[in-house]
């Protein structure tokens, strides 16, 4: 945030919807590609994978959403949004060309300094894959790939049609510098050539062993996290090496409004990324 102290943190950057992609077969998920209206705002919005932003719709309100695009992708920012409440429902009804606001980047990020030189296991479920996509794209960037060891990705969704970013998944699957373990809970598709099963057992079968040089980033629905945690422990991941991104109700996004607190930590500012060890030291009010 250097040099931005004078910036009004409540004031969003104006952005225009440049593209909308329907991601999931039930149309509950759409990816919005935004471009900044004002020159220079994109530079001010410099972010790291794992951060989030407030999508700000005049007249409706704001919603904190993880940034799905990657810092190495220039000229736009992307968010994949599940239709759930007042703001997201309105957003789903908006069109390319509509103007709204974007406030951020907010929160910490995945600990990229720490992860440098390490093997990274990414475990994701459902539409929580957004900041994980951001991370994968970041790590696979030619300038960055050499900074990391092995990259393993376990990603699951309810059905093939509910997987996000399908084209990219296929492309990553073909690469040899990333090990993809895509899975679905169930499918009737005879051509499905990947895994079938829930994320935790697939993780148990496919994920690398934990160790000093290996970190796991876990992002998904509560039930997936609940059952993945013991699997990772069994694989030898230390609680310091299990990295998670939390969600809580937020308003300001920069640590002032008080509602996202879990003990003395604020999910919006001290998080959303915490290690399991840190989380274990807080009241689990998320």
């Amino acid at each position, binding site marked *: 945030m250097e040099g931005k102290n004078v910036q009004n943190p409540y004031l969003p950057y104006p952005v225009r919807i440049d593209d909308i992609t329907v991601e999931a077969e039930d149309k509950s998920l759409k990816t919005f590609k935004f471009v900044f209206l004002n020159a220079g705002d994109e530079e001010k919005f410099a972010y790291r994978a794992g951060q989030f932003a407030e999508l*700000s719709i005049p007249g409706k309100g704001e919603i904190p959403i993880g940034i799905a695009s990657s810092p190495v992708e220039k000229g736009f920012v992307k968010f994949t949004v599940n239709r759930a409440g007042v703001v997201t429902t309105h957003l789903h009804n908006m069109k390319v060309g509509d103007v709204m606001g974007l406030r951020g980047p907010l929160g910490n990020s995945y600990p990229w300094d720490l992860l440098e030189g390490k093997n990274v296991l990414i475990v994701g479920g459902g539409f929580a894959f957004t900041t994980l996509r951001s991370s994968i794209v970041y790590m696979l960037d030619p300038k960055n790939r050499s900074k990391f060891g092995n990259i393993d990705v376990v990603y699951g969704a309810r059905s093939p049609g509910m997987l996000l970013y399908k084209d990219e998944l296929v492309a990553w699957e073909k690469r040899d510098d990333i090990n993809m373990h895509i899975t679905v809970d169930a499918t009737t598709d005879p051509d499905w050539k990947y895994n079938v099963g829930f994320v935790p057992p697939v993780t148990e079968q496919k994920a690398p062993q934990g160790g000093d040089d290996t970190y796991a980033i876990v992002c998904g629905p509560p039930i997936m996290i609940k059952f993945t945690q013991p699997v990772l422990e069994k694989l030898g991941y230390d609680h310091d090496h299990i990295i998670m991104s939390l969600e809580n109700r937020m308003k300001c996004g920069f*640590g002032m409004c008080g509602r996202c607190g879990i003990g003395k930590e604020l999910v919006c500012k001290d998080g959303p990324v915490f290690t399991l060890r840190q989380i274990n030291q807080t009241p689990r009010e998320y």
Partner: protein
Amino acid sequence: MTLITLDTKSWAAGLTAAADAYRLFGPVREDACHTFKALEKGKTPDLDMVNTRLSPKALIFPQSDIILEYSLDESREDHHIMREVQKDVTPRAVVGIRPCDAKATALVKLNFDAPDVKDPYWLAAYEATTFVGVACDAPLSTCFCTTAGCGPYSEEGLDILVMQKGDGFLAKILTDKGRAFAKAAGWNPASGDLAAFEAGKAAAEKKMVSAVQTDHLEAADLLALHNAPFWEKTAFACLNCGTCTFSCPTCWCFDLQDEVAGKSGVRLKNWDSCMFPIFTVHTTGHNPRETKVQRVRQRFMHKLKYFVDKYKTGIMCVGCGRCVRQCPVNIDIRKVCEEMNRFNPADACAVRD
């Protein structure tokens, strides 16, 4: 530090003079209670009170404050683009604020004036304000400022501390802002007896009958305290209204809301309360603090533990006693603080509460 002796006349005349350069606010009697209000020209604050019913925090942090505005009219070039709302940040002075409320403002400042991010609205209002405090010579039985990191003559957060002395006043100028105010008021410097302050302070502190002990809070284990068995009893009577949080000078939580009339809209910053269930409810319906016990615990843990651990400057309470006096069901932070301070996880296992 400068001392100024004032008689009633120069006090009143000074305030009238200062009103040319400052918007003055002070306690005004309304029905049976006192409220902080803009003082009409020529009026002095009514100091015949112990404290106001609501704290003066709203003068810096209004209960409902428009921060952004926008137009939804698509024929306008700037439709759907949010604009900052310009605020009146001309100099103002709060005259008659009690030391406890001034200290509270200093605590709230930790939140709104963080090292890396600032709330420009709060900060602009704060910087525009000169705090002219009046020492508290007759504390209530529910006041416990002296043990809450504050006191009836506490100077923290004040620009001028005034004590009532005989028929007049003795003012202690504490900051540059205070000096500027004294100058605008035409109060002549450097007369008065510092010893009078010390005597007044000692006398007032002696009158304090209520206290809290906070010495074990920081060392206590956060999770053990969070899981302590007493919370259910503590929370039982609670109605989950916002009386305590809204009357508290240190509670700072807020909500952001959009409101639209026709094609013009505003974004508001409204006070919010951790006592309200919707404060934390997720869109999915999941609520991490779903029960009353969780919400009551959050309020006290925030004030007496999380804040203590995070800022290392003591508790987030100045002992003004408003929540004690106004809670409809008599939940008393002094009792809760005592319970928390003496909590020992080992005892909790041995003895059933």
